[in-house]
């Protein structure tokens, strides 16, 4: 099972983007992002707090739809999913 992870803005600078990764069936959103972010301490600290929870300002999406932070630990990813993780928006 392959999923694509897209980080944006500050998160992208620290963690990269368009990351294709193999996941086991039943993998949940939060542990997937955690495992990717672990590769870069500054990137991890940008996305997660000291307790390992998403910072409350982080925005998550799966296939273009918002995933609430409170649902992330129990939201599974499946083959072909596009996961997006980004800081507050600042367009306009």
């Amino acid at each position: 099972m392959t999923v694509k992870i897209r980080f944006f803005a500050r998160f992208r600078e620290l963690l990269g983007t368009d990351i294709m990764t193999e996941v086991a069936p039943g993998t949940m959103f939060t542990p997937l992002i955690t495992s990717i972010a672990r590769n870069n301490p500054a990137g991890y600290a940008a996305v997660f707090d000291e307790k390992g929870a998403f910072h409350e300002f982080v925005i998550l999406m799966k296939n273009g739809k918002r995933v609430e932070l409170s649902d992330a630990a129990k939201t599974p990813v499946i083959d072909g999913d596009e996961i997006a993780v980004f800081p507050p928006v600042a367009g306009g």
Partner: protein
Amino acid sequence: MIAIQIDDVDIGALIAAAKKHGTGAVVVFDGVVRDDGITEMELEAYEEVAVKELEKIAKEAINQFGLLHVDIIHRIGRLTVGENILIIIVSAGHRPDAYAGSRYIIEEIKKGVPIWKKELTRDGGRWVPGEHGHGKGHG
């Protein structure tokens, strides 16, 4: 025209095209790279999602304010001071709807469209913090 793009647009031509039957007022908002001691600005978008969000905002504005036409062009890439970042063109029968519709669109874009800006200075750069801590629901 709803677009996220690198290229600038011809605002005069867009205004001409916005004058649909019944138009009495056109309002244009042009957001510009401000000289806050920066050299350039770099803009990044989650394009597929941002375009869908802009389309949704345009549709809501049309319904809510009876707009006759809406263009939203948000630029990405590197822009220098004075360049256009965001161009919103709306037309309506009467001016109150044109102003209110234009303002609605910019405020909604600020709240919830996945676009980010980095101000580049001689010393490096700084991501512009969002106006709202949380972004609106996109789901």
